[in-house]
């Protein structure tokens, strides 16, 4: 396996295959998030609380994914000269979220299920979450770049705007629905 596959697997995995793999990944991440009480309540946010039913975690995961995909698609329509495939955007975006599994997996360990603010457990989980978040953003960037075929300033600026907008909208939608 080439090391570039860790940050850009989309030259090999795209379309329907990425959608199926991504959906399986999303369901596993969501289930682990539910049993460990790890909320992804925003594109870039994490919160620890075993306080809600499964549908809340499903809503959080799906709204994150659908919104960032929608913003990528709109940006692609406006800025790209290539023909866009919705399935590519949905699939690659979904696949990009798999690294987020790291924090829920750590929280399966009893030590990390309930802990004090500013404890070493908190820094440990946040540290690994940060790593998984950077990894996710790199994957999202490459997903956007490949599925919308954008380059240079257009790519960087539109990606930044998409991330900011989807973060705001995800927060709003989660607040409205939950």
């Amino acid at each position, binding site marked *: 396996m080439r090391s570039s596959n860790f940050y850009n697997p989309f030259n090999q995995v795209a379309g329907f295959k990425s959608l199926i793999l991504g959906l399986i990944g999303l369901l596993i991440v969501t289930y682990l998030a539910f049993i460990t009480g790890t909320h992804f309540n925003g594109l870039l946010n994490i919160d620890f609380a075993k306080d809600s039913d499964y549908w809340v975690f499903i809503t959080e995961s799906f709204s994150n994914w659908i919104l960032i995909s929608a913003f990528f698609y709109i940006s692609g329509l406006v800025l790209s000269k290539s023909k866009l495939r919705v399935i590519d955007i949905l699939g690659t975006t979904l696949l990009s979220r798999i690294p987020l599994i790291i924090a829920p997996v750590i929280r399966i360990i009893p030590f990390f299920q309930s802990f*004090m603010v500013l404890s*070493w457990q908190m820094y440990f989980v946040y540290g690994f979450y940060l790593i998984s978040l950077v990894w996710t953003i790199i994957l999202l960037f490459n997903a956007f770049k490949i599925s919308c075929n954008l380059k240079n300033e257009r790519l960087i600026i539109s990606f930044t705007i998409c991330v900011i907008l989807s973060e705001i909208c995800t927060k709003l939608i989660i607040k409205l629905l939950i």
Partner: protein
Amino acid sequence: MRSITLIFAACVLFCLNSFGQDFKKLSNSEVDKTTVKTAQDFASNFMNKLKNGKPYIFQDEAIDVMKNQLTEENQKMVYQQLKTQFGDFVSLEYTETWVKDNSKSIQIIRLKSVFEKSNKKLEIRVALNDSGKIVGFWIKPWSDMLS
């Protein structure tokens, strides 16, 4: 490479030691069931009284500071705020106990509570001193991180 690993390990150990914890979560076998029942009964009676529009009358289950702070007006005001935001109180269940400095001088009983309009459970936290009297009472959104 070896020295980098050693430095990294030293940093990790230093970090682990630096974040000293004042509170420790008790395992189920360490939990004092009587204390939990005291906290659970108090919280349940308190919330149900207010739900039924009556104030909670303190006996000798809490310290004087608590009794003076939770006056009838304050109780009404607190419940009204909760009702507006989360709906009526429905139920509560025991979740976990934390102790300060391993000594059980202060025990924190954390209860998860359900409110009618809220999709998320709220925390009802009751703190008891070593003579079993209530020294603290909070209602806040549940978090797995104790603050």
